[in-house]
């Protein structure tokens, strides 16, 4: 399918005279009030996997949107295979062979895989009707190339997130892609799915496709990329060959300061009373789960995506009906049928998907904090606005939430600050138990360190924390104790001092298949 470069990728990668696939020269892009990109230069070679890292708001997305023809730069120029390149819109960029796989995806869930891949350009038969046979067979070839075992006629709605991602990539390939841009492709993938994706990417690179890989996860950079460009506040702060850099150096380039995610040396006193106890709990998707969390302790629930961790948390919080088993708070059994009942028992929960299940995006920071605290800001059913402002400003200050005002709609805040707003919502209630599902997903390195500090502070006040995380270094940095789930069951428990990534993965992987090392 691929032409020219595909014949001899090694030459393309090493030949000093071959022009870069894409060169970006001195690009500046100003949005009202912010300089998103300031004189940025960047290049990616044919057959190269080039990682792009930086905190939220560093300008990664803006740069990629310019390359994909969504935005036009205010200054600067671009070249594609050595020729001037200034796409008027996305269509023009696609014609050149630039394909961008978006974070949220751009598929049509009810339609089949083949129809998605050929959306808008389905082959027609002599009657002008859609000709399914060639569409399905081309799709089958594409999928086979990607080593994906999928029937082209399957509706996309039935696919897992990783399969959807691969369909998007297949779609890009069907358009003779020369430059493939991936934006946080692994955020919803399991470890083995991510592995498969990396394999596919390496294959594509071998065929001469240039790949730009935008990510937050440094471990992935070292696993898949050849070279990395670091952006900070709209400027390039470094370009490194992977063999010649370290994660610490990249973090330094990203934030301009050293950050360490060392485990908290202080441990909860072992004699602290058990606050949350779950015994042989079962729901629709959880077969049997048991765990204990003591006051002032952080227990991390580790496991692969789909192991039932989120379902367990949601059952404790009264979202899923409990089939059997017990949930006890301070030794008293509760059976919450609605989150409100769990809240009254002293539980709070920050959900996994901040935008879908956590935030009221179009509402103010104050309203987002107040929503779970109506008891303390209202009297006889009447809300006292002064109380709302007082509560919001106190908690916002305590958690260092950065916002122009409490009236600002929460959608305009950065990911890290949005996460802090969600924490503020629950902290204002002084919960006995706080469940946090993926505390740092999609937040930048600086905010991550803030969030760790906040969670650790909480334990000092005796709050029992149950944290779900797919990020193993995060689990190791935060947890006092680690409970591992696999296929709907709690399968084991590790003291933080004895745990490492291999031990956790060994427990978490069904059928005892162990993959070397952690993902990130």
């Amino acid at each position: 399918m691929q032409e020219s470069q595909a014949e001899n990728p090694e030459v393309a990668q090493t030949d000093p005279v071959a022009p870069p696939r894409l060169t970006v020269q001195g690009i500046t892009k100003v949005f009202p009030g912010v300089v998103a990109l300031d004189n940025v230069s960047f290049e990616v070679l044919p057959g190269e996997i080039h990682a792009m890292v930086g905190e939220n708001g560093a300008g990664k997305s803006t740069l990629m949107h310019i390359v994909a023809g969504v935005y036009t730069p205010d200054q600067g120029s671009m070249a594609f295979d050595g020729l001037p390149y200034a796409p008027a819109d996305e269509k023009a960029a696609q014609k050149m062979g630039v394909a961008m796989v978006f974070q949220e995806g751009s598929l049509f869930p009810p339609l089949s895989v083949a129809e998605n891949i050929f959306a808008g350009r389905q082959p027609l038969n002599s009657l002008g009707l859609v000709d399914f046979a060639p569409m399905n067979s081309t799709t089958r070839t594409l999928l086979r190339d990607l080593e994906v075992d999928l029937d082209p006629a399957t509706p996309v709605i039935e696919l897992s997130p990783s399969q959807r991602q691969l369909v998007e990539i297949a779609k890009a390939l069907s358009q003779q892609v020369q430059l493939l841009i991936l934006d946080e492709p692994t955020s919803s993938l399991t470890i083995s799915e991510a592995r498969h994706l990396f394999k596919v990417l390496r294959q594509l690179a071998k065929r001469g496709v240039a790949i730009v890989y935008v990510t937050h996860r440094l471990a992935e950079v070292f696993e898949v990329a050849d070279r990395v460009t670091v952006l900070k506040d709209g400027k390039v702060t470094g370009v490194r060959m992977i063999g010649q850099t370290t994660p610490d150096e990249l973090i330094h380039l990203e934030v301009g300061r050293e950050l360490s995610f060392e485990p908290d040396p202080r441990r909860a006193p072992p004699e602290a009373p058990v606050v949350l106890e779950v015994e042989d709990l079962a729901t629709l998707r959880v077969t049997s789960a048991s765990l204990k969390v003591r006051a002032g302790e952080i227990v991390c629930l580790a496991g692969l995506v789909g192991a039932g961790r989120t379902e367990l948390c949601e059952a404790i919080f009264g979202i899923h009906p409990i089939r059997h088993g017990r949930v006890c708070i301070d030794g008293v059994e509760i059976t919450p049928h609605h989150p409100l009942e769990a809240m009254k028992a002293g539980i709070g929960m920050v959900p996994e998907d901040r935008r879908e299940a956590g935030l009221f995006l179009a509402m103010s920071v104050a309203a987002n904090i107040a929503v779970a605290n109506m008891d303390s800001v209202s009297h006889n059913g009447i809300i006292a606005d002064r109380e709302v402002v007082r509560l919001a400003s106190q908690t916002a200050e305590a958690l260092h939430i950065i916002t122009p005002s409490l009236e600002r709609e929460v959608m305009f805040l950065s990911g890290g600050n949005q996460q802090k707003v969600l924490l503020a919502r629950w902290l204002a209630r002084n919960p006995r138990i706080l469940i946090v599902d993926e505390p740092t997903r999609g937040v930048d390195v600086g905010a991550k360190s803030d969030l760790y500090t906040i969670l650790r502070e909480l334990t000092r006040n005796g709050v029992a924390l149950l944290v779900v995380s797919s990020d193993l270094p995060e689990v190791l940095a935060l947890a006092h104790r680690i409970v591992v789930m696999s296929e709907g069951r709690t399968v084991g428990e590790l003291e933080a001092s004895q745990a490492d990534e291999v031990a956790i993965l060994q427990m978490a992987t069904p059928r005892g298949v162990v993959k070397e090392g952690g993902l990130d």
Partner: protein
Amino acid sequence: MPETVKTTLDEVETVQEKKRTRNSLLRLAKRIAVDRVLLLIVLIAAISIWMTLAYPEAFPHWDNFAAVLLDAAQSGILTVGMMILLVGGVFDLSIGSTLAFAGIVAGTLVKEAGLPPLLAFLGGILTGTAVGTINGLIITRLRINALITTLAMQGILRGVTQLVASSGVANLPQGFKPFGQTMILFLQSPFWVMLVIVLLAWFAMTRTRFFRQFYYVGSNSRAATLSGIKVDRVVLVGFILMGTLAGLAGALLASRLSNAVVLAGIGTELRTITAAILGGASLSGGAGTIPGAFLGVLFMSLIQNMLIIARVPVFWQSIVVGVVLLVAIGIDQLGRRGR
């Protein structure tokens, strides 16, 4: 040399000043476009001034003013309910049929069954409450969406109304008239009923804990559940309230006309939703205010009044309402894109 420099500086200053005035004008224009309440006030003022100049003998008179407000009364009562539903992310298409049905029930109760007028009037209101409750229960318990449920209810109730009353209940007794025909401070009673409902709802939607929940539910119902809000209960109350208001509007209309009409209220859902969207509501929920709804209704009634005074044929009115709805949604979309 110094002369020239000074002139240039002066010039720069004038240019800057001009720029500043233009900027502040622009900012004002932007603010009006973004703030729906301000925009409606400006539009209503503009129409009023224009009508006063164009039709000095017909428009600027107390009787005409009272007629506009009477027309706004029924829409206003209904739009309050619709606005609350839209804020919560749902809507009710059955209100026109509910209104007619409630009027027929009230008329039958007072004329055929000989009930005291007050009881018959309350019977009409409670009929609406019952319809709203059924709508709400179907939507929250059976999980059938609001569009389908209320569309079906619209058809069912219209049929039931015609079945039980064929052409309607005419010549209602004297005792039933005061609800809709009393003059208070030179305006007819339905206007005052509407005003009280608007003020109560305004207070409720801005200050009370229960009604503030509609904003959370409409903005993100899953997040609302996870924050301890009983979403189903909020939605159910919204529909019960809407049904009650439709019942009230139906009983008031029957009283005002001394006649319960089977075909009353046809097309009210379109007018009501249009007024609410004009007032800042969005079909995706979470947005809109009661003052916005009130001004939206006033705007629609003024347009209607304008068409009547200008002797535009009746069928044009429905065309204008449809166009206004599209324009209002268009403005909303543009505003969203501008962000």
